[in-house]
């Protein structure tokens, strides 16, 4: 892929939902490029379609029509199995409510995506320990999610998202459930990942403070792209 080619290319993307026998349009003709190493914030009011767009980019939902390339691959043509395989190698997820497995320790949660790879146990251990230290939770490796604060849980979730070294990290309201201080820490961590590891991040937020962390903002309203101003 040439260096100038966007990592995410979206062309005329359309998505609608069927509710109560009616078709409700959610996204209308979205066309958007996101460059490799970009940190993009998707903003907009509730129901604007930003989470839907994020889900489509992450390959956990399918558009009605249009083209969506991630890393040069048109993911709209992949079937469920291929999409699952693609996600495991290319996408890291950070959710608003962390979505950690409550029965697994911080270490095991971070290791989870690696069990889908061919890495040996020793290789997995090395990676997990490195990632744990990166998010500052080496001393909490054996703690279960219920024994961690919200901020710490989100750091575990970030560690789980980056452990496979994905092309893209999608974050859906990653600070929505956190206090201001924890939110700042998480945003700083995402920013660091973006700058130090050159990881492409797409983050949904309706928090202007969180959005300022991103280098690029995309506004959606009623399923339409409003503008794409660079963040200064």
């Amino acid at each position, binding site marked *: 892929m040439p260096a100038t080619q966007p990592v995410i290319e979206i062309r005329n993307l359309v998505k609608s939902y069927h509710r109560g026998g009616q078709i409700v349009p959610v996204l209308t003709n979205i066309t958007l490029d996101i460059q490799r190493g970009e940190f993009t914030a998707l903003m907009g009011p509730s129901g604007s379609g930003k989470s839907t767009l994020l*889900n489509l980019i*992450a390959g*956990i*939902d399918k558009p009605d029509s249009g083209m969506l390339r991630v890393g040069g691959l048109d993911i709209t043509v992949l079937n*469920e*199995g291929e999409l*699952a*395989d693609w*996600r*495991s*190698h290319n996408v890291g*997820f950070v*959710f*608003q*409510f962390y*979505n950690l*497995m*409550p*029965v*697994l320790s911080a270490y*095991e949660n971070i*290791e*989870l*995506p690696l*069990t*889908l790879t061919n890495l040996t146990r020793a290789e997995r251990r090395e990676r997990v320990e490195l990632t744990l230290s990166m998010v500052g939770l080496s001393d909490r490796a054996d703690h279960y999610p219920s024994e961690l604060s919200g901020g710490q849980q989100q750091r575990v979730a970030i560690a*789980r998202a980056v452990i496979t070294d994905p092309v893209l990290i999608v974050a859906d309201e990653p600070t929505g*459930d956190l206090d201001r201080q924890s939110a700042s820490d998480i945003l700083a961590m995402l920013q660091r990942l973006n700058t130090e590891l050159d990881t492409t991040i797409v983050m949904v937020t309706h928090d202007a403070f969180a959005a300022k962390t991103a280098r690029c903002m995309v506004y959606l309203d009623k399923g339409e792209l409003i503008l794409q101003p660079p963040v200064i």
Partner: protein
Amino acid sequence: MHTLKLIIRNALRHKIRTGLTVLGLLIAVLAYGLLQTVVDAWYAGADAASKTRLITRSSISLAFTLPISYESRIKGVEGVTTVARSTWFGGIYKEPKNFFPQFAVTENYIDLYGEYLLSPAERLAWARDRKGALIGRQLADQYGFKVGDVIPIRGSIYPGDWQFVVRGIFEGSDETKITRHLLFHWEYLNEWLVQRPTRKANQTGVFVVGIDAPDRAAAVSRLVDAQFQNSVAETLTETEQAFQLAFVSMSNEIIAAIRVVSYVVILIILAVMANTMAMSARERTAEYATLKALGFGPGFIAWLILGESMAICVVGGGAGLWLTPHAAAAFKQTAGGIFPIFAVSHATVVAQVACALAVGVVAAIVPAVQASRVRIVDGLRAAG
């Protein structure tokens, strides 16, 4: 490794709920095993019946006796090796609750029952004592009878106070043989009858007929019955097993009810288990969606649920299986000899294992399919 870890930890997540489900399974598997063992015990006599023994009785009813003059004619039938007489005595030992069978038999009766092991000395002692009796080991152990003891029996069909001296204790050739009965001399009973105004003298309840080959049972039976066709006491000859089953068939409805109850118990625990798994799967919708988002396939999700269900069933069913023989032994002791053979058969154990595994699989099917099919975006909405 992660899969197993997730399965076990998920199973232990709600300890009370899982514990109660395991307990329910334990009880269900145990109850199923015990009920099936009761059914088996009912058939134990028929199962242990010999293929080389026929029973000739009155074709009208067992309540009617046959003249002993038939004996020589039965002996003359080709294929017949031995003919012994046996009459149901039906007496009471101390109290009606102390029921055990007593038979008035001819001496050669014991020759027909090779599965009853008796020393020659004891047999001789019995033969020499008109009031002598032989008792089985199970009966001896139940009441503590020893050789030389006098067993008082109050006659019901043959009124009076009878006394029998234990001259020998026969053992069963294996644990499936029922040895919970008393045998005494048919002549002793007949002498008593001869002195009374009754038509039962010189009569026998049944003839036990030994034959030379099991495959000739049907032919010999027909030939025996043909001898007495159109006589005042027509006979019905059948294999010992058929004879025993005829007894069991009198309790067919009870046995059928026990069987149905044993299946109902399994169906109830299946419903409980299915509900437990459905609740667990529903609570974890967001987790399954997260796993799918991370790249785990629908098969992995289904396997997590199936594995959890199987783990619960293996523990509960295993505990039930382990407990069944102990409970059966306790039941046998408490039942006071109603079932002389009350052992959990291999077939019952296999059925218990099959039931436990089937419950595990069936209970997981619907939640596993639903969870594996959940759309990621829908499942993630359940978080928070």
